[in-house]
């Protein structure tokens, strides 16, 4: 067996008191393909950021040993110089530049102080040949498919004399053919002596390509499975990936009263002209009165797109299929139409597109339904304050007054303001997208309690979540999505972490 090219020893990293990584050990042998696996939030990205110098030396504990010597990266260019290159899921290409310019950006081929373009193009052709990409180097990157763009990224890495190539979910946005090509290429590069680390959620890929696989969970190394000994199997990976009990952090609902169907989707598809692909395909889905429906799936599986396509379609997807609210067929032209039909959507990114951070709590709570407290367009401030105060109390928002700027609140309180804002609309159906992301356990419990109270009052909830524990702990029924399709539907009695994970990683 060859020696290790990379050893990360006892790596720990905290963010303002929260431990993201604790004593992680991660060893990669020279010339192998090593897969890094774990749920969302397990610490994979953090670990790779430590390795690449995004988090500079000194902000973490532990050692990085690369090719036998301890490394102290202060910035990304340090790690690149050593021969470690990361390719992120969100490609870092310049769409309006040509392929050859992209390959050598920041690493220009020079003669004297000027760029030698002829030489650049010649070199670019060599790199493209190595990655098996047959395009004119003068093509603009935006005119290439995502799969080919991915290859340009790899060519760019090769131009920097890469020794260790790290790929963060490289096939997440690719179709099957492109994925297969990419995996083949990794095999080719392996023959040329390049070591690769691949982060992936697709277990089949992992099984087919990995020499070794390390599983992370909750910021800790759980195990490293060895492909040579046939240890890498779907069951082994899933068992190690989830392997935790649902703690008693989900309040029990007193009783269930499930009623008629509130929302129904048939053959529902959405095409994004921006991404030039279907983000949703042939979805059948329904929600009944008084139930919490969980939607599980990995990031990019189409969960958020599903919510947006129902909620007035703000991204302007081309929609096909049928949407019925309480049995009546509907077409929403604007989010306001969806709101009028009794649908509310609490976004995933509360700071980005959920809240008005520079405004106060009161203005945020009433923002989506100001007419409720206005008469002929003139706001009745007394009424507004009165109603906002009620929501501040019932949402357990901790703030000195309604006049506090929302941007200064903690994540949990911001989320409760978000929730309050949408309950103020008086919806029949509440869509929660990652309702507890990045908030502490106490606030989580409060949000779960509010959810239970709402359904006992006859509301319906769709909960999109990456946390399997939450999905299992709160839902009455679980849908599982992957690659824009519904992969399965399970009643809560039959759902468990293993079968959900299996469907989500198909």
């Amino acid at each position, binding site marked *: 067996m060859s020696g290790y090219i990379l050893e990360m020893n006892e790596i720990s990293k905290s963010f303002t008191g929260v431990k993201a990584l604790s004593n992680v050990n991660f060893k990669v042998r020279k010339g192998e393909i090593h897969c890094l696996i774990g749920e969302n939030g397990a610490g994979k990205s953090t670990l790779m950021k430590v390795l690449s110098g995004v988090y500079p030396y000194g902000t973490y504990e532990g050692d990085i040993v690369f090719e036998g010597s301890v490394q102290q990266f202060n910035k990304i260019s340090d790690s690149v110089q050593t021969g470690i290159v990361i390719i992120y899921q969100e490609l870092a290409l310049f769409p309006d530049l040509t392929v050859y310019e992209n390959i050598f950006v920041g690493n220009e081929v020079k003669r004297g102080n000027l760029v030698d373009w002829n030489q650049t193009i010649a070199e670019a052709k060599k790199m493209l040949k190595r990655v098996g990409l047959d395009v004119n180097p003068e093509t603009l990157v935006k005119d290439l498919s995502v799969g080919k763009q991915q290859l340009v990224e790899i060519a760019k890495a090769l131009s920097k004399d890469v020794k260790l190539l790290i790929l963060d979910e490289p096939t997440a946005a690719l179709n099957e053919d492109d994925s297969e090509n990419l995996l083949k290429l990794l095999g080719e590069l392996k023959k040329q002596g390049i070591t690769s680390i691949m982060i992936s959620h697709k277990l089949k890929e992992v099984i087919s390509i990995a020499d070794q696989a390390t599983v992370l969970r909750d910021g800790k190394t759980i195990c490293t499975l060895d492909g040579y000994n046939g240890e890498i199997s779907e069951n082994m990976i899933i068992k190690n990936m989830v392997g935790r009990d649902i703690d008693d952090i989900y309040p029990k609902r007193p009783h269930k009263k499930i009623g008629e169907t509130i929302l129904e989707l048939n053959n529902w598809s959405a095409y994004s002209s921006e991404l030039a692909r279907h983000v949703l395909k042939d979805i059948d889905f329904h929600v009944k009165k008084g139930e919490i429906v969980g939607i599980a799936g990995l990031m990019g599986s189409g969960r958020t797109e599903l919510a947006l396509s129902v909620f007035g379609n703000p991204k302007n997807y081309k929609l096909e299929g049928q949407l019925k609210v309480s049995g009546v067929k509907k077409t929403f032209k604007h989010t306001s139409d*969806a709101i009028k039909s009794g649908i509310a959507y609490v976004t995933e990114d509360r700071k*980005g*597109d959920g*809240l008005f951070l520079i*405004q106060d709590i009161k203005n945020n709570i009433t*923002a*989506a339904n100001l007419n409720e407290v206005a008469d002929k367009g*003139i706001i009745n401030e007394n009424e507004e304050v009165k109603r906002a105060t009620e929501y501040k109390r019932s949402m357990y928002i901790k703030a000195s007054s*309604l006049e506090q700027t929302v941007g200064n609140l903690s994540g949990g309180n911001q989320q409760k303001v978000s929730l309050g*804002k949408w309950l103020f609309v008086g919806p029949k159906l509440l869509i929660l997208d990652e309702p507890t992301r990045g908030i502490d356990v106490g606030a989580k419990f409060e949000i779960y309690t509010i959810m239970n109270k709402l359904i006992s009052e006859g509301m319906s909830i769709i909960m999109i979540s990456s946390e399997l524990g939450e999905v299992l702990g709160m839902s009455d029924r679980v849908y599982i999505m992957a690659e824009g399709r519904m992969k399965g539907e399970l009643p809560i009695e039959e759902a468990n972490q293993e079968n959900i994970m299996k469907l989500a990683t198909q």
Partner: protein
Amino acid sequence: MEFINEARTLVKENIRDYGMYIALFVIMLTFSIMTDGLFMSSRNISNLLDSTGYIAVLAVGMTLVIVIRHIDLSIGFAAGFLGAITAILLTKMGLPIYVTIPVILLLGIVIGLFNGLLIAKYAIPSFVATLAGMLIFRGALLQVTEKTGTIIIKDDAFNAIGNGFIPSLMIVNGLHLLSLILGLLSILIYIYSEISTRRNKIKYQFEVVSKGIFTFKLVFVSAIIAYVTWILAGYNGFSWTVVIMLLVVVAYHFLTTKTVLGRHIYAVGSNPEAAHLSGINVNKITYMVFGSMGMLAALSGILFTSRLQSATTTAGTLFELDAIAAAYVGGVSSAGGVGKVTGAIIGAIVMASLSSGMNLLGVGVSMQYMIRGGVLVAAVLFDVMTRKKRG
């Protein structure tokens, strides 16, 4: 002692809101001393406010445009062009003033809506769309005045808008009675609204300032209104321009602070994506704001034309930049969602005071431009620094 401490923390916490008032006070005081009181004379203040009018109304509209993260460069020549059309309608077509003014205002709204259409529907950056408008209206202005040159207006009623004063009813001790009554009324309305707001805040357990500070503020602001009224009443009383300016401010202040539309404008400014997801029609708000901007540009054109009693071939030159400067001095933020219409008026008065004071002192035009530029940078710098401190 407690009073002073509270005052100090209040000023510290609200420095952004108070900053321009303090600046205006300092500027007025400095010029008064340097000109031996000539600056604060009835005649000068009256002239100063009248010459601010056509920029101030633009600054009000511009503030809202900047609040929703856009800009409008077309309004200067749009005002000039609409002013020329006003003159043509009044003189060549012989239309009466009460027909002409609504027609011009409507035309302004149409122009603004067209800008809004390019920006909201076709996603053309507002800078480019309105830059094109600026060129077009400059050409249009030349086109309609090419043959005649300056168009002189002889309609007294129209010319009174920019030069006349409200009737005085009676002169008491050399002061104009109606102006005095109006001043007194505004003081009473101000005191009443402040007290009722405070009552409400106390009722809902909001934080309020102590009684001492509150009384001080009431007395202070009332004194200022009284002083300005007294100054103006001693000359010719309130001019029609000042009355129009005040009406615009009151209307827009009400619109922005008390109505659903106003709240939606600020929501779109602070986070357009969140506004869209909150069911607010962002495009509609963009139309409204640009439509209002167009209407105010028309009003500005009317005020300016009336003030000159004629339409000229260069009317409206650089108005848009003066309005933008006034809005920024008045505390609007290009990051969106922040900025008050009252601030815009103060900003316009600050800039006008600088011009007026420097004119009295005989400062050359070249120096005047540089100093005004410096003040603009200082105002925005101040805004950026105070925001950093808080953030």
